[in-house]
């Protein structure tokens, strides 16, 4: 994986961040937090791109200052004034031409060498003991599969801190792009093709991201989260996800909800282990354990779940989860909400 390079330039990173952050603050008048900032890396992959960007940024800043300064000086110094002799009709200067051809070329070498090194360092290779996660983009939600653990979930990826994660990205329909900025750069999810990235998160947290390739009506509503947990926390999550679907208590509202679920169109698209095998929509076996709903659009609370079940397209443009025909009664919806809530 990534070796610790650019130690010298790491010093520059906090300075850049300070500069950019303070500039952004000055303009925005608010202090964040910026949950999708690319300038707050929390993995080896994100750090490598950040270090590289910082280096290039300072080269660019230096060139910017020199060029704009020359331009301003020329404008001020050589304004037309009455009585000045006509300017000398100079046509060119070979040495100067050579100089300002070579100068940018040399700077670009200093940009290109670390660029190529970082390209190969972040090519997505991972050690064999890496945690494997398959990411499948759908219009407009993310499916995550953990092939070695037998887990399938949606929109919220859980990974342990300090362990390399090998992410294999593809799509079930159109092209999407998987992006959690704090953990690394984006990679497109392309049907018929598998792209790989690898990252090792270095601090626990709940990192947000979203689809970065335009993918249709609700492209804006295709958000995601990556929960980086401690080793034991992640192990507990895995245990929970590997267990079967929770059974509702006898004669409860949730049991009624399960009955409605099994006789409605829900089962055509959604999977609940031991209840329904649908593969079009998100797997709901542990939907109650997720914090958000509908591709990360809403908090996973009973109010939003109820509105979502009743009329998904009203909340999410283009959603293929249509209104049920005949419509569900409010009582049906309440029962379904109760059932989904116990599916922890």
């Amino acid at each position, binding site marked *: 994986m990534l070796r610790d390079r650019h130690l010298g330039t790491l010093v520059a990173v906090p300075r850049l961040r300070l500069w950019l952050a303070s500039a*952004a603050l000055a303009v925005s008048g608010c202090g964040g937090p910026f949950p999708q900032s690319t300038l707050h890396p929390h993995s080896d992959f994100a750090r490598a791109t950040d270090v590289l*960007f910082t280096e290039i940024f300072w080269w660019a800043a230096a060139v910017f200052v020199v060029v704009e300064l020359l331009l301003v000086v020329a404008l001020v110094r*050589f304004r037309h004034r009455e009585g000045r002799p006509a300017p000398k009709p100079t046509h060119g200067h070979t040495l100067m031409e050579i100089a300002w051809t070579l100068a940018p070329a040399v700077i670009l070498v200093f940009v290109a060498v670390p660029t190529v090194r970082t390209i190969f360092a972040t090519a997505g290779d991972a050690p064999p003991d890496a945690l494997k996660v398959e990411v499948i983009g759908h219009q407009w939600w993310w499916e995550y599969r953990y092939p070695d653990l037998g887990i399938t979930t949606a929109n919220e990826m859980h990974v342990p801190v300090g362990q390399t994660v090998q992410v294999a990205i593809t799509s079930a329909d159109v092209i999407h792009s998987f992006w959690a900025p704090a953990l690394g750069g984006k990679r497109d999810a392309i049907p018929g093709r598998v792209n790989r990235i690898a990252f090792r998160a270095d601090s626990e947290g709940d990192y947000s991201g979203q689809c970065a390739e335009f993918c249709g009506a609700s492209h804006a509503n295709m958000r995601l989260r990556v929960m980086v947990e401690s080793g034991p926390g992640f192990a507990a999550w895995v245990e929970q996800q590997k267990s079967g679907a929770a059974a509702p208590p006898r004669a409860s509202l949730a049991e009624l909800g399960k009955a409605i679920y099994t006789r409605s169109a829900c089962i055509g698209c959604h999977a609940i282990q031991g209840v329904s095998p649908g593969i079009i929509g998100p797997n709901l076996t542990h939907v109650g354990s997720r914090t958000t709903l509908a591709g990360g659009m809403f908090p996973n609370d009973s109010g939003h779940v109820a509105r979502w079940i009743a009329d998904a397209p009203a909340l999410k443009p283009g959603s293929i989860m249509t209104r049920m025909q005949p419509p569900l009664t409010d009582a049906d919806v309440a029962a379904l909400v109760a059932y989904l809530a116990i599916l922890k």
Partner: protein
Amino acid sequence: MSDAPPAPPAPPAPTGLKSWLTTTDHKRIGLLYFWTAFIFFLIGGLEALLIRAQLAQPDGHVVSAETYNQLFTMHGTTMVFLALMPLSASFFNYIVPLQIGARDVAFPRLNAFSYWVFLSGGLLLNASWVTGPLFHAGMLNVAPDGGWFGYANLTERQFSPGPNIDFWLLGLQVLGISSLAAGFNFIVTILNLRAPGMKMMRLPAFTWMTLVTQFLVITAFPVITVGLVFLMFDRFFGTHFYVHEAGATPLLWQHLFWLFGHPEVYILILPAMGIVSDVLPTFSRKPLFGYPVVVYSGILIGFMGWGVWSHHMFSVGLGPIADSVFAATTMLIAVPTGVKIFNWIATLWGGAIRGTTALHFAVGFIAMFVIGGLSGVTHASPPADLQQTDTYYVVAHIHYVLFGGTIFGLFAGIYYWWPKMTGRLLSERLGKWHFWLQFVGMNLAFFPMHFIGLLGMPRRIYTYGPDLGVSTLNLVSTVGAFLIAVSILVLVYNFVRTRRHGQRAPNDPWGGATLEWSIPSPPPVYNFSVIPTVANRLPRWRTEHHGPMTDPPAVPPAPIHVPGGSWWPVVAALGLPVMALAPLTHTLWVAFLGAAVLLFGIYRWAFEPFEV
């Protein structure tokens, strides 16, 4: 200012609708291009304002998701194909023949054909805004909504069943024909119709950049046409060029689109660079510094523009070797670009700079384009680009290049050549207001987008949450966009005011070095009463070895025959949008009707005696 007295007014030209419909005069066609493109520019700007209104606040509700997607698609498509390219074309048409000492372009009727095809393609695309009811949909429902880049497989029938994408791919095919015809026309014009003594290395820089641009047009447009025809076949005839289930890959579209798309960027920027290279010497009273180097670097940019397309695809996962190669070629393009910028500054250096509005815009071009170029270097580096691509950081970049660059360059051209094209000088006072409002507006609108992108806001999203922390930055950007709109209103007012009250322009209001300033403003229909003989690169200036040329006499010494107009270009051009209606309406006979009109027009055109 020139000391020569104003020339007598040009002989009256025929007026009326017929004279405009049948004109083959490059100057009139240039004006048609200008006004058509300017109106499309206003429409594209209106779309931008709606986009910015929606994003002014988090969770905006100005437009729906579907409308928003149509707005940003049409904004990009309109600005690239219907505003910037044809605004450049208006200067190619009006100015290039004057700069090379010609009486018209090589193929005047083909030139008229190009214009009418452009107009019909533009109308076809924009008809999608209002023709929803014809497709059993509401208004504002069937405009293209797949992005100006139209990525397959989202644009396949399976995922975009409506006529939206059909409008887009048919409109672009029609526009491509216009661009190709114009491209060949200007190449032949510049190579063959130069006045005696106008050697290639005496061409004005703007004409040189026009030539390079046209070579890019005739090589790049076939590529997107192939891509669009594949897409059309996929959508209408069930082929599978971009369908991965059938063993193909949607990435083919991305390669074809960007193989066109990157040269297209240079098609948009090179003419503006040419304008700047003409404006700076005039107003600093100094020849262009390093003329051959500026010309060669323009040619080099044109060539290198073909080897960088995959830098639009770094997140696609092409592998580390391809990424490294395309990173290197992309960075290399910064070298000839930097050379141009240094030569422009050296042109100003030591000059006697007059701060006209045209010079303001030319200098604004340099100042803003440098920012766009430098942010371009930051995403020439694939790992850095993985964080930046498809975010507002890239939106900032393209607007510094295409607005700060191309638009500023084209506006320099407007203020510079307006007196030549209309016979009246635009108000300099209003011009300065326009410049400073636009300069401040664009930096307010686009500079915050760098931060918005780095803070994680993707582009092409119709809504964002307040939790992202970019609400205030977005509001500032929206304020900037509306400030730009105000500046454009000042420009429009300047146009209107100048029409009646503008100061009449002499032959040469600026003391220019090139041939277009040796003839009346506006020029007579035959341009040059006597074709000039050119002895050096700056024919109208006194240099070490030459005095200024004598301008052609105001009255032609011998009668000049000028060919009349022709109906057949506009008739032939009409056939193309009719053919495009066939797939839109799924009606075969309409295709035959359109083809018949096209063939009839071409047949009559071919057998029309030219000297009518």
